[in-house]
């Protein structure tokens, strides 16, 4: 492919997603900003939230693969070579990270509606892992 640079990729993704392109870009940016924001606000990662988010992430990874196979009318047996496995792993990771981030932010939002503004400012109660 000629001129395969950032611009071509952006143009192609724009055509692929149509009107969804910019909302999705904004969603991804908001997700990342929100995630970082929650961690900064809480001065660490809540272990309980993190474990649940990870579990959701595992499911999200498989959902991503299922979605891709469905959209492209294909099945697992169509995997033909190493690059196909790489693509599968990338799709799984994308689905997993996306779902985990959304889950973590969601749990944090749930927690803060349950707590008073004062409690929110307090450092994490559960063993805060900064590791």
């Amino acid at each position: 492919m000629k001129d395969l640079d950032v611009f071509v990729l952006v143009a192609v993704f724009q055509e692929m997603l149509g009107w969804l392109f910019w909302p999705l870009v904004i969603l991804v940016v908001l997700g990342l900003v929100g995630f970082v924001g929650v961690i900064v606000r809480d001065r660490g990662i809540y272990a309980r939230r993190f474990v649940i988010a990870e579990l959701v992430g595992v499911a999200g990874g498989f959902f991503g693969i299922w979605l891709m196979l469905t959209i492209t009318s294909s099945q697992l047996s169509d995997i033909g070579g190493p690059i196909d496995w790489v693509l599968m792993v990338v799709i799984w990771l994308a689905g997993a990270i996306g779902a985990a981030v959304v889950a973590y932010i969601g749990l944090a939002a749930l927690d803060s509606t349950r707590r008073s503004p004062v409690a929110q400012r307090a450092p994490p109660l559960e063993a805060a892992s900064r590791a």
Partner: protein
Amino acid sequence: MPSIAAVSRRGLMVSGISALGAAAFGLPRQAFSQVKTKARIVIAGAGAAGLAAAARLSDRLDGAQITLIDARKEHYYQPGFTLVAGGLKPAGYTISSTASHIPRGVTLIEETVAEFDPEGRKVKTSSGRSVEYDFLIVATGLHLDYAAIAGMDTSLIGSNGIGSVYAGPEFAAATWRELSRFADAGGVGLFGRPAIEMKCAGAPLKYTFIADDHLRRRGNRGRAELIYAANNNTLFGVPIVSEKVRMLFQDRGVKVVHDHVMTAIDPARRIATFRTPQGTRDIGYDFVNVIPPMRAPDAVRNSPLPWRDGPFAADGWLDVDRHTLRHRRYRNVFGVGDIAGVPKGKTAASVKWQVPVAVDHLVADIDGKVSTASYNGYTSCPLITRIGRAMLVEFDYDNNLVPSFPGVIAPLEELWVSWVMKEIALKPTYLAMLRGQA
């Protein structure tokens, strides 16, 4: 060989995020200074090549009077026909309106070019209107010559086991209905290709593989015989690909007959007649994918523009230099897309490589410069080998494989990733190409 546009776009990157945003929003890329001109440019045909050329020209020229001429209100994303005829997409997947793709500032005349007059530097439209030009880009695509097969008519598509993927979106959908019926009932499935130049030479092969796959999925492969009637002694113009297809056909149990060119069809008796070196031969079928001979549209054939001798003369292909796409006799005329009289080519992928080269030469002419842009014959074909797998075959004039992702996506390997590209990335890339952005 980076085109001017590519170089300046890379230069653009340093100017950062705002430039990225501007380009992504579809604003004209102003990084290279636009050439000011009053030139009148006529583009005959608003298909893949005509629209891509119009977009690139309006990006690079300031003040040019660009006119597209095409009577067809619907634009077809033709590579999607194979997916429609494979039962994977609805006909509408391939249809959009021509008007929706016209770049800002470009005029569309919704008529056909009836006459080309390169001496007088003008074209005449179907209503008799004369349009003068300083530069002409011929992008009329090609004519599907169904009448050249005795007894064949597009009205037959979708009945009596007759399919034809090429004829258009609705015909592709009708072809799927016939193929699906065949996949249930079994019998003889007959495939093949015309003898002369054709667009997307991989399409006849893909459809054979798709038919095989549907039969297998329905547990009916044992009840069917698949025959591929090749026009000569190969299966594909690029020898290394031809050999790979031979192996795959053997693996799938597709019977190959060589040197068979379809000359007639008898829909009532379900018999196709072929010209072979040993004389004519009839083959009965329960399903047939008819692919007609392809030639230049009459307006081009009857003009002074086609080759006058050599292999491209008989069917009226445009007499252009294979590296610059410039007409060899009329220097202010270019030919891009299927109409170009160059070896291979005739895919949307080659359009993507041809258009920037022709446009670069045209703009350089206006600017009083000399362009060094050159087209190497790049053509690509995601050769579907079953639903869910394809081979990303890319090659040039010299039959070299020129993979876009060497070492990552193997060209002669049946891969899911290549199928995924065909399924979800090809149409967006095509649409971005129409906007001059890919």
